[in-house]
């Protein structure tokens, strides 16, 4: 039986891991490599490194970080934030990343997803979607780390990126992100029926029961968690045990 993946999301600014709320704020929470290694050793299934300030500075600078990470972290590593060109993807993959997450550039130029998927394969290309609730069962796509509204509907955009060749979608609720108030279940419910590629739910987990609640309602393929780990609210073992006790299959 395939398992739900529990993914650690580490937002990075220069040499620090940071954690914001609603994708705002740069509070330092540790060293990203130390944290990645720690989570790997404690049974996390995957790591996502997001450059939290790539949008500000029109750069992306995670190369050294990934190079170091993949010398002792032997699980899939995704890198996102400021991926704007084919070369950016090439550099990321050559540095040791398995997948890249793309948001802003894809919204500006959807063809970029198609191009990247063709060259590197869909399995390498994650479409990162930042969703802000704007009405009853309606969410708007944002770019630039939750700063710029686009006027696009999240469900429509999700369908579009699948058509373009994205291999997975990492769907982040800006409203819940960093709040530890639980996942925006309606968001994932709205999207899941419109796409057939894997969905990683991101944003809002404060305790294991949040994950159980989400997974029992919606067939997401993975959950990306941050605050609950970075602030040491629960351990990976505790989270996975709770999931198993609720008959949710995860890798032990």
């Amino acid at each position, binding site marked *: *039986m395939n398992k739900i993946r529990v993914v650690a999301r580490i937002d990075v600014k220069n040499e620090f891991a940071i954690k914001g709320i609603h994708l705002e704020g740069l509070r330092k929470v540790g060293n990203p490599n130390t944290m990645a290694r720690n989570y790997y050793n404690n049974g996390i299934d995957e790591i996502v490194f997001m450059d939290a300030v790539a949008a500000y500075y029109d750069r992306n600078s995670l190369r050294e970080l990934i190079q170091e990470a993949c010398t002792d972290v032997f699980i899939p590593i995704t890198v996102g934030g400021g991926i704007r060109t084919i070369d950016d993807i090439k550099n990321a993959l050559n540095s040791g990343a398995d997948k890249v997450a793309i948001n802003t550039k894809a919204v500006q130029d959807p063809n970029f997803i198609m191009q990247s998927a063709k060259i590197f394969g869909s*399995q390498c290309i994650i479409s990162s979607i930042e969703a802000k609730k704007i009405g009853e069962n309606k969410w708007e796509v944002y770019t630039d780390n939750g700063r710029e509204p686009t006027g696009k509907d999240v469900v429509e955009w999700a369908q579009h990126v699948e058509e373009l060749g994205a291999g*997975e979608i990492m769907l982040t609720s800006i409203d819940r992100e960093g709040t530890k108030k639980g996942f925006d279940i309606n968001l994932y419910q709205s999207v899941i029926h419109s796409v057939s590629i894997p969905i990683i739910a991101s944003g809002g987990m404060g305790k294991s029961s949040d994950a159980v609640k989400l997974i029992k309602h919606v*067939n997401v393929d993975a959950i990306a968690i941050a605050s609950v780990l970075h602030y040491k609210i629960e351990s990976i073992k505790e989270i996975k045990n709770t999931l198993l006790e609720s008959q949710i299959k995860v890798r032990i």
Partner: protein
Amino acid sequence: MKIAIVDYDIGNVRSILSAFENQGANVFLTSDKDEILKSDGLVLPGVGAFSHGMENLKSYDLVDAIKEYAISDRPFMGICLGMQLLFEESEEFGETKGLGLILGKVVKLPTKDSQNEKLPHVSWNELNSNKAPWENTILTDIEEGSDMYFVHSFIAQPRDSDNILSTTEYSSHHFCSSVKKDNIYGCQFHPEKSGPTGLKIINNFIRMCQT
């Protein structure tokens, strides 16, 4: 003792290098025929399209060298696309010919219901044994039901079921997740991305190269 990893400009090889180095192997990347033939172990990595993989192997002029190495009885491991290339052909984008080292072909992973079982198959999933025991293979001392990391949309179907080393279930379908034919191994999953258990498999392979 040197293990060669085929460099044919496809996929992320840095992780494989790191994993092998982590397990103490003397490992190097190469697209040189002679280096391949001289090595004590060979790894064929790869992600992406079958046809692209074969095209690159041809343009790097490595097909013959790999075939020659394969019949030399030294350990050989194909990973993910690398495993698929071991077979005769693939139905992806029409029919493309593979290396033909193991009889069988590569087909799309059948899924019943696109809602609950999506493609690509991206997840951790269990290895189940087939007829042959895992002792003295790359799966030595690996626990039955261990989770490995998969990311693929196609699978290999060996004609001879004796070649099936492990199966894995997805979408109510049991597909071949690893193969063994004499000295040739293939892993549909990524051992270099499968945590400590994956490293153990790599370690098993390295030990075989040492003997």
